[in-house]
């Protein structure tokens, strides 16, 4: 079973990297970019075939390590 975890900064948390990327896009003449927030994607292969079990495991992985919930949100997708 495969899963994708997306970790993004919470709204309101300063993201200087996102700002720099946003500035670069604008300077490259890519019109219509209002703002950029940078995040992380983790593609994870699981040994289990049980969806419920996978969800529990992935939540634990996010809470324990993948996301710092002080400043980050996470989203789990089983694909």
């Amino acid at each position, binding site marked *: 079973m495969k899963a994708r975890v997306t970790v993004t900064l919470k709204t309101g*948390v*300063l993201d*200087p*990297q996102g700002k*720099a990327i946003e500035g670069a896009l604008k300077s490259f003449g890519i019109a219509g970019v209002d703002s950029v927030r940078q995040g992380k994607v983790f593609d994870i292969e699981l040994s289990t075939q049980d969806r419920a079990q996978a969800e529990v495991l992935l939540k634990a992985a996010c809470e*324990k*390590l*993948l996301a*710092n919930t*002080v*400043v980050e949100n996470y989203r789990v997708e089983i694909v």
Partner: protein
Amino acid sequence: MKAVVVLFPGSNREGDAVRALEMATGKKPQIVWHAETELPAGTDLVLLPGGFSYGDYLRCGAIAGRAAIMDAVRAHAARGGLVLGICNGFQILCEGGLLPGVLMRNKDLRFICKMQHLRVERADTDFTRAYTKNQIIKVAIAHGEGNYEADDETIKRLEGDGRVAFRYCDAQGVVGGLANPNGSTNDIAGIYSDKLNVLGMMPHPENLIDPLVGGIDGAGLFKSLVAA
């Protein structure tokens, strides 16, 4: 004062920490490997040194904050034992749940390596008794992720409970503005735990203990610890 320095893969300031502790205590502190599950018996102070533990992969201090030795460090802190995290050590303390908040990328995205003045916010803790309240000290900073952030409620609590240890200032002691190198909330350079026995700070006092390298303002912190 029995001090230990925890070594993670990627730590690189442990030598400076050992030297500062040895100078202050007269004894070489023991180095403890991150995979250990216990601290040596009778440990008074645990120092988490600077560096780039685990290559700063994922987030600074994230993996080290969950290393085997950290359970022992958390238990030591819960017993009232002293813990000092410097630079990456501060990031590890935040990621490891010993201190609130998080160290984010510097606001101008640059790694900053320079001398920096700090204001000592209180001189009645085990870490700062050799200083005076509001004393201005000059130490070094060297970090890319030193921008302290926490939610409003946490900041309010830290401020209200007197848990800000040091603030960034200029040579005249003026706090904030251009003297804030990284965008830290309220110019915070270091914070204490609620019982004041855990201190995390971005600057490097351990690098300013010898007149040969430009000052000895960092020595006060280690002198304070010896008297603790």
